[in-house]
């Protein structure tokens, strides 16, 4: 009688169990450098909708975030991230911080919490996009927080990878590291090719929605 396993066999659950097949969470490769960046549309913490298509003519930076991740913390407690956000804004670059942690996961924020974080950390992104279904992150194949992307004025992806060159959680490493995003933005502004256009991103695993039990 041990086989009397009724609920498992009810129609819906049966279907659900089938559906447990490990879903490929996203395309197994991230978008290519030099190709049009994946389109996205997301609402920010103030209710405004941002679409990549509307940002044509502007250089765009995407920064995936999870405020409880120690690596995100490294670049915010040191003010490295905020400084770069301000420099970018001064050059007319649209810096979008993307909160892609799924609901119930570490780093998931409400609009209010996102604004509170921006205030308390004295951050200066153009907007904090709320991405609770990790759609933006998925489109870009983001794997960690912070994972950085630069899209040029023609909508071409010109940089993907880490914020800097020393993968550690130690704040003291920041001055020693090459700040990839800052360097790349400078090259984009100067109309040059980005030299290090694809680097290894480091940080906490991006908290995608759980696809299985």
């Amino acid at each position: 009688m041990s086989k009397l396993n009724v609920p498992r066999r009810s129609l819906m659950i049966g279907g659900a169990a089938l559906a447990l097949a490990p879903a490929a969470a996203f395309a197994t490769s991230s978008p290519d450098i030099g190709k049009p960046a994946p389109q996205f549309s997301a609402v920010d913490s103030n209710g405004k909708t941002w679409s990549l298509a509307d940002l044509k003519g502007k250089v765009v930076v995407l920064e995936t975030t999870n405020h409880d991740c120690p690596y995100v913390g490294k670049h915010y407690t040191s003010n490295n991230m905020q400084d770069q956000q301000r420099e970018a804004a001064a050059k007319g670059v649209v810096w979008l911080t993307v909160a892609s942690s799924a609901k119930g996961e570490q780093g998931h924020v409400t609009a209010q919490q996102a604004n509170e974080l921006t205030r308390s950390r004295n951050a200066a992104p153009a907007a904090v996009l709320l991405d609770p279904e990790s759609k933006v992150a998925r489109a870009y194949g983001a794997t960690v927080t912070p994972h950085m992307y630069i899209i040029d004025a023609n909508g071409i992806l010109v940089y993907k990878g880490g914020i800097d060159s020393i993968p550690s959680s130690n704040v003291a490493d920041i001055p020693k590291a090459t700040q990839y995003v800052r360097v790349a933005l400078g090259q984009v502004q100067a109309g040059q090719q980005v030299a290090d256009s694809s680097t290894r991103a480091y940080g906490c695993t991006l908290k995608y929605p759980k696809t299985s039990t």
Partner: protein
Amino acid sequence: MARFLAFLFVLLAGPAFAQTVVQTDNVRSELVSEVATVKPGEPFWVGLRQTLRPKWHTYWKNPGESGLPTEIAWKLPEGAKADPIVWPAPIRFDIGGVINYGFKDESVLLVRITPPAGLTGPFTLAAEANWLVCEDVCIPEEGKFELVLPSGAATTPAPPATLALFEQARRAVPIASPWPARYGLSKAGDPTLLVEAKGLKPDAISDVYFFPAEWGPVATMAKQSATVTAEGIRIPLKKGDAKAAMPAELAGTLVLTEKTADGSVKQAFDLSAKLDPAFVPAAAASLANAVGAEQLSLLQALAFALLGGLILNLMPCVFPVLAMKAAAFARLAGHERSEMRRDGLAYTAGVLVAFAAMAGVVIAIRSTVGDVSWGFQFQSPVFSLLIAYLFFVVGLNLSGVFEVGSRLAGVGQGLASRGGTTGAFFTGVLAVIVATPCTAPFMAAALGFALSQPAPATVAVLLAMGLGLALPYLALSMTPALQRLMPRPGPWMDRLRQFLAFPMYASAVWMIWVLTQQTGADGVLYALGGMILIAFAIWLLRLGNGASAGTWVRRGLAAGAVLLAFAATLKLDDSPATAASASGGPNAGVSFDGWERFSRARMAEAVAAGKPVFVDFTAAWCITCLVNERVALETPATRKAFEQAGVVKLKGDWTNRDSEITGVLKELGRAGVPLYLFWAPGADRPKILPQVLTESLILSELSSIQQAKR
């Protein structure tokens, strides 16, 4: 006494100094030495032994797509030397789709230390280690270690327990690969690794995975499907994100499981593959960009859905229901127009409500689990049994054994006309239930779209499909001109109705057959037994009339019989059949005669070998599939043509759950079977053939490759 004082001193001073054991929130770390006494100038081994909290992990030298490797910074006396960490073989972690390489439970990182030749007195090893430890969340941790070892004229070994620990640690370290390895780049730049492990027994080798030693050249995120032949191991990889050119040597660790007489043994080999410019692998068999894979807009999807629903009426699955509908229509022929119209609308409403309900189920499953497929309910034997009962009862009804809405329910004759409307409604529901195992042309793309879209689009597409299904009958009931073409009512109607019971019985037989594919022979016993009980219940209810005490007894008995019939569902366990199909066991419902069982690895291998490959995704409950096989795939002419062209024929059986096949369908934007793929020799992507196959279509596909050959 002096010793005691020293002990006391250590005890008191210990916490203030670095120590050999560091306990952090998630890891217990200990620096251990294989020797108790150090001989000056003679190398010896130490290990950083880390015991992790259950379910947490630390990282390998290449941590994968996220994470950081453990680092040890040594502070050694002048003239001493520490070699790099010798890493144990890693394991793979999939964290929400992000692939990481690392360790769980316990790991020992070995380091060879060379003390200075001129060492006098104790040798002090100091180290600062930091590591990232993650479960869902990641925490960087660190520890300061200090180990003081006396020196002497000869080394002396550590206690046996420590030596055993080292022995175990060494076993976890990959050995140098006994086989040469090389790699080539496809035109697209994707590397394929060849390990010339000749003489391997392909059947005995499983779970082959190549861990690249560094981030960059190889995408750690991409699935690997290695093929093992007597010639060796071939692993098509995907190029990674590094901007640099591919290295002259691709280094990494090859892990595989070998079935031996003593059970399964996991083995790890360090290898370095030289870039072989002469080896240009055919592009990895990628399902992406398959020719014929449709990308639809919502409008197109709606149009396809409507058209697909319409065509669904011509599919074999819906025949029994059409039979019923024809019977109903014959009954209504000559009745008032308003009644016809009401009947048509009720049927349409039934179809639409059923589709809406299905959309609801799809959305509910998707929001809780995230993935759903068309026809999935037929993968549940309980569903098959219930449908068999339903067909049986409807058949009895058509045969005239009982009437719905009158005697059975004990409702007065005055409500009979309303019963007709209700009947029409449920006929619509029934049509949808039985239609699901058929995918009509156009529907596949629309369904693939519907199941992957946000809720409103899912509902809209499914409703459009329902409308298409109901449309012919709706049009008929609304158009008097068409109705005039219908024959006059007469006694032939009863005969037709009774005759139509037989397609229903046939459908019930088919469902029982599907059931046996899912559960084995016992399914027949439960299904037929259940049918007898149901027939018995109907007979009981029809005995006599009026509200005598006997009526209640009969009703009670009938209810009992029906309950018993439904209890049969509890006896059905889908696990044996599922297990059988998972392990590649035979499933008589889908014939593998002349076909090989589908697997991604087999497909990739055959495609890489430059052979033409035909893949048939089918299921015992999919009538369209079976019809296609009968009329197009298994005819003498096609069989011969397949043979002449040297086509590798692969069949994927989706009768029971199969996550590999579900994954492939999903990648191709499909939600159900049938699905046919054809890889021309050397093609880097498959062509998706239509859902309804003809012999001439297959033959022309095959002859086109024959011509290309010449």
